[in-house]
């Protein structure tokens, strides 16, 4: 396709600019630079003849008008401005809107912008932490109210539904993953301990590892990804649809209807899931012990019996409701933080998962410190 063109003719004090070809946005790059660099030198009058222009759109029209203004600003008198009759209305539209200054596109890559970003991020982390803390307090109070007047605040069916949703429906995925974790642990343990001829102690490592730490930790992380995110997305979507506002205007207590059933359901379901995860992981480990080292199932049980006691099991189990509480709380809190746009649902769902996994691991570390001080 042919390109737009323009010529400059100088005769004494006057300048004549002839333009032709397609002056459209697709070809603008070909003439824009040269037009900007246009130097009137010592001319005092200019004539613009664009009658050879074959196609003109807003961009082309703007370039012609800009050139005219540019020459006028340089002190030249514009003696003529010729354009084909067809294009006059278009030029009038732009002219009547008076050439605006170019739209500013903000560059965000400066050092100051980086500092601002760091500052804002730190501030929002702080606000976020305070927010969660305040929310945990509020829900705890709601919970006590429920204990005092269960018939008014407690929603049995909703809670049962949540137990099914976060507990029973999670059984397949938790089972499969924990089975594999058991296999991997047993394999790695066996690989190392075989060198010292201590094959049988794989069972000890497996039993203690799974029951104290990994069973509950991995289950909690799976549930944070599966149910914590679901809480945020569900409540967030309701927020976007103004369903939460509708509930409030009808006099329904959002905490009773949405939050408590979810958090309670999770606190009840996660210990059971953890127990199930422990059992499945041990079965996976036992299977690996048998195939890798020939430790039969009765031998496995006998060794496990020596390696662990009730405390080992309880140390793991006691963490489950705490993790559940944190996951449920963060999930619901972030859900209620959703603003009235769809993008915010996605953003806060991500944040909810990151925060709950983070808090679960931090709390796990805190438990470890506590148990070591208590000598359990």
């Amino acid at each position: 396709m042919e390109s737009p063109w323009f010529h400059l003719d100088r005769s004494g004090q006057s300048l004549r600019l002839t333009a032709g070809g397609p002056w459209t946005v697709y070809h603008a790059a070909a003439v824009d630079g040269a037009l900007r660099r246009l130097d009137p030198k010592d001319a005092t009058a200019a004539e613009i003849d664009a009658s050879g222009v074959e196609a003109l759109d807003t961009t082309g029209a703007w370039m012609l008008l800009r050139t005219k203004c540019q020459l006028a600003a340089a002190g030249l008198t514009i003696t003529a401005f010729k354009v084909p009759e067809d294009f006059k209305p278009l030029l009038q539209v732009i002219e009547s809107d008076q050439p605006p200054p170019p739209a500013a596109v903000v560059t965000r890559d400066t050092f100051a912008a980086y500092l601002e970003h760091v500052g804002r991020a730190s501030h929002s982390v702080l606000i976020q932490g305070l927010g969660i803390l305040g929310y945990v307090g509020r829900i705890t109070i709601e919970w006590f109210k429920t204990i005092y007047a269960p018939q008014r605040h407690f929603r049995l069916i909703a809670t049962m539904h949540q137990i099914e949703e976060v507990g029973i429906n999670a059984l397949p995925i938790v089972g499969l993953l924990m089975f594999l974790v058991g296999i991997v642990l047993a394999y790695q343990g066996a690989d190392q301990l075989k060198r010292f001829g201590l094959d049988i102690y794989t069972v000890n490592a497996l039993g203690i590892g799974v029951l104290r730490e990994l069973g509950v930790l991995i289950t909690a992380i799976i549930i944070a990804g599966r149910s914590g995110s679901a809480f945020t997305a569900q409540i967030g979507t309701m927020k976007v649809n103004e369903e939460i506002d509708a509930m409030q205007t009808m006099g329904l207590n959002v905490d009773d209807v949405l939050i408590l059933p979810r958090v309670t359901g999770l606190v009840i379901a996660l210990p059971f899931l953890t127990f199930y995860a422990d059992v499945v992981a041990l079965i996976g480990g036992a299977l690996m012990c048998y195939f890798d080292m020939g430790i039969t199932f009765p031998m496995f049980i006998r060794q496990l019996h020596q390696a662990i006691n009730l405390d080992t099991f309880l140390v793991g189990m006691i963490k489950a409701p705490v993790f559940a509480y944190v996951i449920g709380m963060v999930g619901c809190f972030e859900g209620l933080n959703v603003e009235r746009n769809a993008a915010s649902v996605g953003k806060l769902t991500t944040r909810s998962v990151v925060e709950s996994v983070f808090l679960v691991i931090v709390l796990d570390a805190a438990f470890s410190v506590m148990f070591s001080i208590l000598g359990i």
Partner: protein
Amino acid sequence: MAGPDTIISVKGLVTRLGGKLIHDHIDLDVRRGEVIAIVGGSGSGKSVLLRSIVGLMRPAAGSIDVFGEDVLAMNENAMRALQRRWGVLFQDGALFSSQTVAENIQVPLREFTDVPQVLMNEIAAIKLAMVGLGEDAASKYPSELSGGMRKRASLARALVLDPEIVFLDEPTSGLDPIAAAAFDQLIASLQKSLGLTVFMVTHDLDTLNAICDRAAVLVNKKLKVGTIDEVRRDPDPWIQEYFAGPRGRAAMRQ
């Protein structure tokens, strides 16, 4: 038969959504330079028709020609070339939320042209001025704008490549009556000065009376096309209710 200045030609269009028949063999010709409005009850498939023409949905049967080319049989390159020649304004603007208004307007320029950044900034400013937004809107994010401003900004984006057709999906919905009337005037003046063909889906009787040349009413899965007066005389009960109801009469009195 499609005349020489027919710009969009829909023939025998059949659309099914989830097994439900939406359009039953509808025909529609849109002429170059006119403003045509698609009217119909909620759920009658107005937006579906628009989405089929711009290639977002595939009809079960029928043909859709835009600029004389069959949209349904097009390869990717031809479709890309076609997409530069139309602009679409979605109901709530559909501005990209991670970009400022100016960046939004420049998206088609970046994608289809090699215009330098300085000129792109100038183009964004002109387009904003054309749709009646001030220069301060350029660096704002869509979430910082009101509904009416979002629509204007989105119209600026739709117009940035000087398309021949603009598709408007309920351009005045969600606007207050004053903003809606102003938006109607904006569309009318841009249509005249840029020689646009406007294809709009609307509920708004005021828009229909103020700026539309022809109307196409979707009733009972069929399309009835004509000038506003012709359509108004149609005996169909829905059309009578629509034009002769209290709102219709009020809009007509003006």
